Each structure stands twice: as structure tokens, then as C-alpha cells.
């Protein structure tokens, strides 16, 4: 909402300066976005007089001027038709900023003649619209004085109005709120006894309203005839221009001026361009209107329109039609002043995706009491008659002013209860009265009747806010929040796991990233496990599906790094993935992706391409950080986006805790990644909840007094035999004695054919006595037997 200082002062009597008004506005919830003083940038420009004006020798329209600045005479080349000797105009000298150019002017040469300045037109300086010639200052203008003596500074306020404050979508409303808050007093609009207009005739227009219950409860028209449309007066044009509205003609400008000044949207039809009976009704499906913005809108049932025998002429409260709009030759008009309900306006506006100053006001709720009479239609009619002449008819009214809501019972103690600041009852009453409420005592409480313009006030809580707002938010004390008793964890176990997993993965070299929860369907497709979850109104087709997995976004992230010249890296994300379009059809996943080489080339260690075992280690580390159970199984059940022979799943029973592996070359190719990529996905929601234990005590440590014995055994086995099977068979041979089994060598040379050699190291930990050689050999023999029996592997000899 924009307005100028002088505009505000038409209604507010105050000595307060710009900053004081701005601070007050912000403190009562009308937040200042910006204060713009258009003359600030051009304040160096001065009034100068043309001493001499001769034709330019090389041009048929340029003049060479000798311009008197009050201190010296300078030469200026000027193309304006109104340049003439003796004229006082506005001069810009080299270095002076010209808003229309966006930069300062310089000394220049125009067709061979030097020019040391520029005589300016209004539109070039943003002080008006005139561009027919250079500014003509009055005779008595003082040569050498600042431009602000001709165009006084009138700063523009830009105020952000919250959706509840329809009443402040107007200069008058803002003045009223400032006055209530103690800054200035509201000027009376006119003498109460004054008669604004005297209707000269009864209009023959037939008006029918069948939309009383669907959004147009109160609709009025007034005919004004013998008007003469012409440009509106300069003061009105300047104000509209100052707030970025384009002056059109007196009849149109008046409606815009009222809209901004009083928050009263209006419409003016050219009465000679409408035909037959006028009806306020619901649109029919498929009806069309060419609106004043030059666009055609297709309407639907339920939208309130104003129509005549030709069809729809206006979308009620939002925008008029091109055909019935006022033109320069308009002589007879119909002035519409109505109350449309916010719901109806919002619905129609949203459906048509059409916004306007008028919609903004109706949507927030205008003052229904200012539809007819001295604060409504009469005031507008008077201005039209004043500017355009003519005579007005009696008003034609359909429907009636919506009933005011019931008064609100208000206990002033609520202010302290809710806000923690004690505002005495008398002050509460005074504040509410200043805001226009009628306040009656009811025992120790109040009965409050809100003013017609404050449709946002509906209950006692609103009155509490009003009291606090005017009393001052700055008077709110800051009270320390009492702490609840006892120690408790702030994080749920699941959240705690996420925190640990994030830190663990970062500790393993992962760079945490955050990627969109949505992605391109093209990339999502190979990763779907269920129907796609599509966004109906995506910001782009690249982001049209809720991600079914974190992996494709991480692949894209890797690719964007590779493109930037970073060939190797490790990225991880902890976040949701989606398997349905309803709430809770999502799961929390930690995914880490490595690409390229394990490290840069190094003098001591040779880097290698990242592989399945990096991903497996990442998955196990994440599970470990999340305190997953230790008894997991590794299987080959990874989904299709992994390399089928170099991937796996980590499971507990049937529950998948994680997938890991190298990514499928087809997936990488489709996403245009040419380097090695491995990844893991850990499904945090699938982790069994931690076991509840009575205390935090840890099981006692038992250390053996005897030295452990280590033996190495190598086996020859078919390639298909899993190393883990051999390890488990060995471990299970004698759980009491064998404390550890590990694989320390793998050989798959051609000389072994389709077999491989796997060497394991067995750690035998005596618990009761030192073992004899024979006893140790016996353990080894049993291990060899068990491995052979369980896997078919034979001791390599």
C-alpha cells in the first residue's frame, strides 16, 4: 500500500515528521517497507532562465540556448518545441542524475555544438507525466533555486498491510489508525450538515440482483448524465503517478483515487454502452469477458458478475469489461458502489488467477457501511460532478448492508492473562473507543461493539491484540521461561540416531548435502518401488515428482561436481523419501555416495576406484552409529539400480536395514556419469527400537589369563562360495575356544579354474588352561572338517 505524505495529511492533522510517522506505523503493525522521496535524487537541479534561443544550424528542430543559472550563463542544446527566450525551466548540469536515464548527464556535443546541460521535461524527472516539452516554471520562480521550490518533496510511504487489515488498505484508514495510536488527529471529511449531492432525476435503469446470497448482498448503482470526460486534475494525476498508477481519464481516475484514499472499490460503466436490464448474477459456465487488462477470461457458475442484455460486462469486485468501460467521449455513466463478500471475491479471483487493487480490498473486507450515503456513493458522485459536471440520479439499491456481528463480551483481565502486561480497565476502554468501538460496562466486564470497518475483529482475543497493539508491543516485559522439573531428553530415540548417523558419515569423509525432496520423473523412474508421487503444480518439469530414493539426487549432485572439475568425492544426505501421496507415506533414509577415486594420487599410496566395499563400510558405520543390532545378515538382494554382482543388502530377519553397492552402469549412463560410483542407503525407520534397560551399566569385562594362539588355514572353494559362509562355519566349530576368524587372503588366479583360494586366520583363546599342541591341532582339524561339510571348501595343500 503506497501513499504520499501530503495525501495522508489531507486526513491527518499532525506535526509529526516522516520518520516519526514511519516508526509509529511499524509499531502499530503497519510495517514500513520503504520510504521513497522522488525529489531526493534530483534535488541538485535548479530553476534556470533562457536568455537566448537560436536555431541550431545543423538541425530543423534543435535550439541552442544561453541559459542563466543565476551565477553564470551556459550553453545548452535543446530539442523541446516550447524552448523560448525568457522561459524559466529546470536545468540539469553535468553530474546531475536524471531518473529517466538512470545515470548522471555529461557534457556532450549535439550535431557539432557543445551542450553543458539539459533542460528537463516532467516525465524525464519522474515528477509528472508531461513530455510535450520542457517544464514551464511560473513567472515568479527564482532563478538558481532548487527544483524543490517548484516540485516540493512529497515522500512516498510503502506500507505492508497484513491480510487482516482491510481497513488500512486506504490512506484514510491509515490516518484513522495513526490518530487512534496518538499520532495526530483525524480531520472531519465535511460538515455533518453539508449535503453532498442532490439527485436531479430518477434513473430509468432496471437493476436486478439475483446474487444476494452468493456474494453480492448489497449492490447499488447511480446514473450520472451530461458528464464531460477529460484528463483528471493535475494534483490527482500526480498522486496516482507517485504510487505507480497510470492516470487515464477523470472518470476512471476518480474510481482509482477512491479505492486508494478510502479503500472503497468502485466501478463506472458507460451507460450508453450497456444494453437493457442490468443484472447482478452468477456467471454461466463458459461465459467470457474481455477485461480492462486486455485479457479474455472464461467464467464459471458461482462467480458473481454484472451483466446486461449483451452478456457479462464486469467481474464483480475484481475487474470491469473493456466494452462497457468509460471512454473519452462518455457522457452518461453508471456508478457502482457495492459490498461483495470476501469469500466470493477470493474464490473468483483465485480461479481466474486475476488480481487487482479492487480484489485486494474486497478480499480483505471493506467497510460495508460506506457503500451509500455521505461516506460512499454520495461522496464519489460529488467528486464526479465537481470534475466532470452533469447531474446525478437517485441511488438504485439492491439488498442491504450486511448485519453487524453481535457485540463481544470482553474482560480486560484477559490482557494480562495472555500478554503478561497489566493494562488497567479504563485504559483498555479508552483504547477500544479510540479505535472506533462502542464500549459499554457490564459489571466488571465490557460489552464491545466493533466499528463497521473492522471486520477482522470477531472475538475477545482480537480485542486483546488491539489493546496491546495501541498500548504498545514495546511495553511487553520479557519474562524468563520457567523450566519444567526433572531432566529429560529433548530428542526422540529416532532423532538421536539421525544425529549420530550424520556425524558418523561426516567422520568417514562424507560431505553432507541437502537436495530437493522432489526431482525429475525421468530420473526417478528407475528408482520407484511404488506408483510415482507427482506434484500437480511443479515449479518446473525437472522437479515434478517426490523422490522415491535419495540416490538419484546424489548422482546428480556428483555429476554437477564432476562438471565443475571435481572428479572424486563423497556426499551424503539424511532425509525423507516417498512411496505414496498421503501423509506418512515416507521414510527417513541416510544415503552416502562416493564417486571417482578413493583419493588423489599420492607418493606412498595408490588410490583406487571406489567400490562395493567402501559402500558396505559406510552402511555398516551408519548402522553402528545408529546402534543397530550386531547380528545382521548380508545378502545379495539389492534393488535394480545397483550392480547385480557388486551389491548387497543388510538385513535383520526379513527387514532390510540397508542396501549398498556399486551403481548399475545403465543407471549411471542414463544420468550421464562416466566415473565409478558406489552408494549405500540406510533405512533409519526400519531399525528396531533400542532395548529398554533398567540402568546404564555395561556388562562386566572378562579377560582371559592365557595367551591367544593364531593359526592360518587356506581353503580351495568354488567361486560361488561366500567367504562369510567359511568364516561362520569356522567360528561355529568351537564357540568357546575360537574368539575370532578373519579373511586375510583371497586368490582367484586362472590356474585355479573356477575355484578360488581363501585364507583365514583363526584366533584360539584358551579360557581355563594353556592348550597343548595336540589340542590346538585338534581345533584346526575340526575347523577344516566343518568348513568342508558346510561349504565344500577343501584345505589348500
Amino acid at each position: 500500500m503506497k501513499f504520499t505524505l501530503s495525501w495522508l495529511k489531507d486526513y491527518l492533522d499532525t506535526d509529526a515528521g516522516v520518520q516519526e510517522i514511519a516508526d509509529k506505523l511499524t509499531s502499530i503493525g503497519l510495517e514500513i517497507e520503504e520510504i521513497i522521496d522522488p525529489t531526493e535524487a534530483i534535488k541538485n537541479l535548479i530553476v534556470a532562465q533562457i536568455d537566448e534561443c537560436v536555431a541550431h544550424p545543423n538541425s530543423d528542430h534543435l535550439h541552442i540556448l544561453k541559459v542563466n543559472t543565476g551565477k553564470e550563463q551556459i550553453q545548452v542544446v535543446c530539442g523541446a518545441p516550447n524552448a523560448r527566450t525568457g522561459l524559466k525551466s529546470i536545468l540539469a548540469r553535468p553530474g546531475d542524475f536524471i531518473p529517466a536515464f538512470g545515470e548522471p548527464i555529461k557534457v556532450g556535443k549535439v550535431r557539432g555544438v557543445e551542450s553543458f546541460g539539459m533542460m528537463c521535461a516532467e516525465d524525464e524527472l519522474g515528477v509528472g507525466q508531461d513530455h510535450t516539452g520542457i517544464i514551464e516554471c511560473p513567472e515568479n520562480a527564482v532563478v538558481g533555486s532548487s527544483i524543490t521550490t517548484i516540485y516540493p518533496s512529497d515522500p512516498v510511504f510503502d506500507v505492508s498491510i497484513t491480510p487482516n487489515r482491510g481497513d488500512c488498505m486506504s490512506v484514510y484508514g491509515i490516518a484513522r489508525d495513526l490518530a487512534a495510536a496518538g499520532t495526530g488527529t483525524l480531520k472531519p471529511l465535511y460538515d455533518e450538515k453539508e449535503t453532498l449531492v442532490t439527485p436531479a432525476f430518477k434513473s430509468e435503469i432496471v437493476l436486478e440482483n439475483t446474487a444476494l446470497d452468493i456474494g453480492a448482498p448489497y449492490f447499488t448503482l447511480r446514473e450520472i448524465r451530461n458528464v464531460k470526460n477529460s484528463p483528471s486534475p493535475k494534483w490527482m494525476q500526480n498522486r496516482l503517478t507517485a504510487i505507480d498508477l497510470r492516470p487515464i481519464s477523470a472518470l476512471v481516475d476518480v474510481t482509482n483515487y477512491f479505492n486508494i484514499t478510502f479503500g472503497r472499490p468502485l466501478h463506472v460503466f458507460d451507460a450508453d454502452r450497456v444494453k437493457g436490464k442490468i443484472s447482478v448474477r452468477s456467471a454461466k459456465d463458459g461465459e467470457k469477458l474481455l477485461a480492462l487488462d486486455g485479457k479474455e477470461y472464461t467464467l464459471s457458475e458461482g462467480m458473481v458478475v454484472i451483466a446486461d442484455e449483451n452478456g457479462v460486462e464486469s467481474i464483480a469486485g475484481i475487474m470491469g469489461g473493456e466494452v462497457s468501460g468509460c471512454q473519452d467521449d462518455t457522457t452518461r455513466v453508471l456508478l457502482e458502489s457495492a459490498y461483495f463478500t470476501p469469500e466470493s471475491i477470493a474464490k473468483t479471483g483465485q480461479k481466474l488467477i486475476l488480481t487487482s487493487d479492487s480484489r485486494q480490498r474486497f478480499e480483505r473486507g471493506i467497510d460495508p457501511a460506506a457503500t451509500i450515503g455521505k461516506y460512499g456513493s454520495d461522496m464519489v458522485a460529488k467528486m464526479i460532478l465537481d470534475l466532470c459536471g452533469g447531474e446525478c440520479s437517485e441511488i438504485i439499491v439492491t439488498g442491504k448492508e450486511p448485519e453487524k456481528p453481535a457485540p463481544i463480551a470482553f474482560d480486560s483481565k484477559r490482557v494480562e492473562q495472555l500478554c503478561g502486561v497489566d493494562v488497567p480497565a479504563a485504559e483498555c476502554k479508552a483504547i477500544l473507543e479510540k479505535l472506533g468501538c462502542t464500549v459499554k460496562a457490564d459489571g466488571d466486564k465490557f460489552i464491545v461493539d466493533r466499528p463497521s470497518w473492522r471486520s477482522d475483529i470477531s472475538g475477545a482475543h482480537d480485542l486483546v491484540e488491539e489493546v496491546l497493539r495501541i498500548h504498545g508491543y514495546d511495553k511487553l516485559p520479557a519474562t524468563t521461561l520457567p523450566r519444567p522439573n526433572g531432566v529429560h531428553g529433548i530428542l526422540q530415540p529416532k532423532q538421536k540416531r539421525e544425529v549420530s548417523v550424520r556425524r558418523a558419515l561426516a567422520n568417514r569423509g562424507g560431505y553432507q548435502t541437502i537436495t530437493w525432496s522432489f526431482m525429475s520423473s525421468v530420473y526417478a523412474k528407475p528408482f520407484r518401488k511404488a506408483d510415482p508421487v507427482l506434484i500437480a503444480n511443479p515449479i518446473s518439469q525437472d522437479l515434478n515428482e517426490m523422490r522415491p530414493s535419495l540416490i538419484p539426487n546424489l548422482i546428480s549432485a556428483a555429476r554437477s561436481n564432476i562438471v565443475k572439475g571435481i572428479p572424486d568425492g563423497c556426499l551424503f544426505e539424511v532425509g525423507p523419501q516417498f512411496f505414496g501421496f498421503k501423509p506418512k507415506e515416507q521414510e527417513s533414509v541416510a544415503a552416502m555416495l562416493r564417486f571417482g577415486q578413493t583419493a588423489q594420487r599420492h607418493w606412498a599410496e595408490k588410490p583406487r576406484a571406489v567400490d562395493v566395499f567402501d559402500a558396505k563400510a559406510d552402511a555398516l558405520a551408519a548402522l553402528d552409529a545408529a546402534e543397530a543390532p550386531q547380528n545382521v545378515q548380508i545378502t545379495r538382494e539389492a534393488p535394480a539400480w545397483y550392480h547385480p554382482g557388486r551389491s548387497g543388502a543388510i538385513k535383520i530377519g526379513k527387514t532390510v536395514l540397508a542396501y549398498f553397492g556399486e551403481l548399475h552402469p545403465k543407471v549411471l549412463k542414463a544420468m550421464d556419469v562416466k566415473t565409478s560410483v558406489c552408494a549405500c542407503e540406510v533405512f533409519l525407520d526400519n531399525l528396531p527400537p533400542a532395548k529398554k534397560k533398567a540402568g546404564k551399566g555395561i556388562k562386566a569385562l572378562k579377560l582371559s589369563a592365557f595367551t591367544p594362539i593364531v593359526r592360518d588355514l587356506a581353503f580351495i572353494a568354488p567361486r560361488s562360495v561366500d567367504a562369510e559362509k567359511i568364516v561362520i562355519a569356522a567360528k561355529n566349530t568351537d564357540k568357546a575356544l575360537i574368539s575370532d576368524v578373519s579373511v586375510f587372503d583371497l586368490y582367484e588366479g586362472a590356474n585355479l579354474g573356477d575355484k578360488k583360494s581363501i585364507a583365514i586366520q583363526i584366533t584360539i583363546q584358551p579360557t581355563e588352561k594353556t592348550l597343548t599342541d595336540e589340542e590346538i591341532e585338534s581345533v584346526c582339524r575340526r575347523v577344516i572338517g566343518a568348513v568342508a561339510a558346510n561349504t565344500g571348501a577343501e584345505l589348500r595343500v
Partner: protein
Amino acid sequence: MSKLDTLQTELLAQVEKAASLTDLDAVRVSVLGKKGIITEKMKTLGSMAPEERKTAGQQFNAIKNAIAEAIEAKKEALEESEINARLAQEAVDITLPVRPEHQGRIHPLYQTYDEVIAIFGQMGFEVAEGPDIEDDFHNFTALNTPKNHPARQMQDTFYLKGEENGERFIVRTQTSAVQIRTMEAQKPPVRIIVPGRTYRCDYDATHAPMFHQVEGLIVDKTTNMAHLKGCLIEFVKTFFELDDVPVRFRPSFFPFTEPSAEMDIGCSRANGELKIGTGNDWLEILGCGMVHPNVLKACAIDPDEYQGFAFGIGLDRLAMLKYAIPDLRTFFESDLRWIKHYGFVPLDIPSTGAGLSMTGGNKR
């Protein structure tokens, strides 16, 4: 000089001459070995007269001891020089780089997330979470946002395809939806914060289609707006790690709070550089207010008996302000160089006890 003295001098010279441990051992064998000079001498003692034997025995022993001592000393010296020679041989270029190790980074947003949780945790808030996909009731209706509120327009809210019983679902526009889910599941007192992803149909220099909020909610019988102010002032001071931050509360509007406020913190923008905590300028940082009675009613909580406050903070914005990160969009670009530069080492775990963030030391 007696013959024996000459012998001793000679033998000591031999010991001294030994250039290696092998040489030295040869000398030891030749002198003290089974057939060594001194050993042979000793053997002659048996054939001597008792008086003579006594004197000679002492003399022989003296020589033997002197040589043995010399050998021992020489041995130590040789060993020392031998090890020194080996160590000299083993010297490496210690300016070579160490073997590669990898430490990653925590994204600055999540560092901020952990900081915020630490601060509110200390004030007795618990973390609550809710789904990213929401229904109309939780995201809007129950939050007192009527059907035709501008926030529900297509331009702002992402809608999902698919319907259930005629209802379309959205991705949540605000973490406030979790207020409702929490109050449905739990009777007052409620004291929660809700960090999470939120989504709006908006993408330009200062808006991302996905961003992060942290919502706060207290509902009990006594918490009022002065507590809200106290709580948030404590938060900003702790978060920005400043002894004092000027704070301004302004009236504002949110459908789900009344009275509503926006909180600004004092800052300066001199020379284009934003400094928090000093200066004459204000920076909007969050929205808050007392929970609207209609919100409580939607959760079957009696607004005449219970009251409380709610606030919502943009986490991304907090991170940008505290750590002077200029562009929101870079948060979501996965640029490894950016994450390394603005990210945090994994052991920099925020805690109100140990200090919220590391000093930055000499690194930043």
C-alpha cells in the same frame, strides 16, 4: 715399563683399533677367549711358586679386567655409531605429505539445526516431527486458515496428484502443521520444537521451493506473551553468541496466532556488511504469537483453560545470518567446495554447556 705393562698397552691399543663389532669380538677372543693371550697367561699360574703366583695372579687379573672394561666401552661406542649410521641411512624427507585421510563436513544448515535444538532443549522443549506430505486439515484448516485464504492459492502451495475420498494432499507449507499433530496426540502441557523441511511454489534469488523451519509451541495454563518475549530473547542471544541483542516486537498477522508479532533484531548494514547486535537498523527474524483459540479448539483443547505461544523461524535464514552465507540457493547445490568452506567438522558438536560453536580458531 714391565713386560706386562707393555702387553696391556698393546692389547688396549688393539681394542681401540677395532673398527667394528666383529673386529672387537675377534680382539676379545684373541685376548680373553679359551686360547686367548690372557687366558693362556692364567694357565701358567699353576706352575708358579705361591708368592709369585699371588703377585702374577693379581697382575693378570688387572690386565684382564682392564681389557674387558675397554672392550665393553668400545662395544658401546661402536654400537652407538653403528645405530647412528643406520638411522642416518633411514632419514626421509619429512616434508612429504601424509597419507590421505578423509574428514567430511556437516552442512551449515544442520549445524544450525543442532544448535537450535541444543538451545531450546536447555529450555525444556522436546523435538517433534511430522510428515512432509500433509492434508488440508493439518496444514490449513486446523491452523485457522479459512478456505479462501491467499496462502492456500495454487501459487504458494504444492499440490500432489491423486485423491483419497475426494481430498488432494499437499507438501506442507509450514512446520506449524506439526503443532496440530502433536496436540491431537498429546494433552497439555505441550512444549515442543519442530524442525523440518517446508515447501512453497516459489523460486528466485531469495526463495527456494524447499526450505527449513523450526516451529516452537508451548500450551499450558500460564504461559503468556511476556514469556514468549523472554524465551525468544534468550534464544537469539544464545544463538548469535552475543551478550546483548537489541530486540523489537512488532504487531503482525498470522492466522494461527493472536496477538501476533514479528520479532526484529538490531543490526547494522554499514558498508554493505550485515552485523548482528549493533547499529540502528532492524532485521526481521521470526514470526510468533499467542496460539489462536480456534487452533486450540481444533485440537479439542479448551481455550478458556489453556493458552500458550507459538513461533516459527526460518532455519536457512538463521544459518545465513550467523555464518554470513550470502545466497540461500547455494545451500541446495551440493557443491563440495561450498560444503567444505561453509561446513563444520563432525566433532564440532553444538552444546550449550561446552559453548555453542567452536571459536573458528585460526582456520576461518
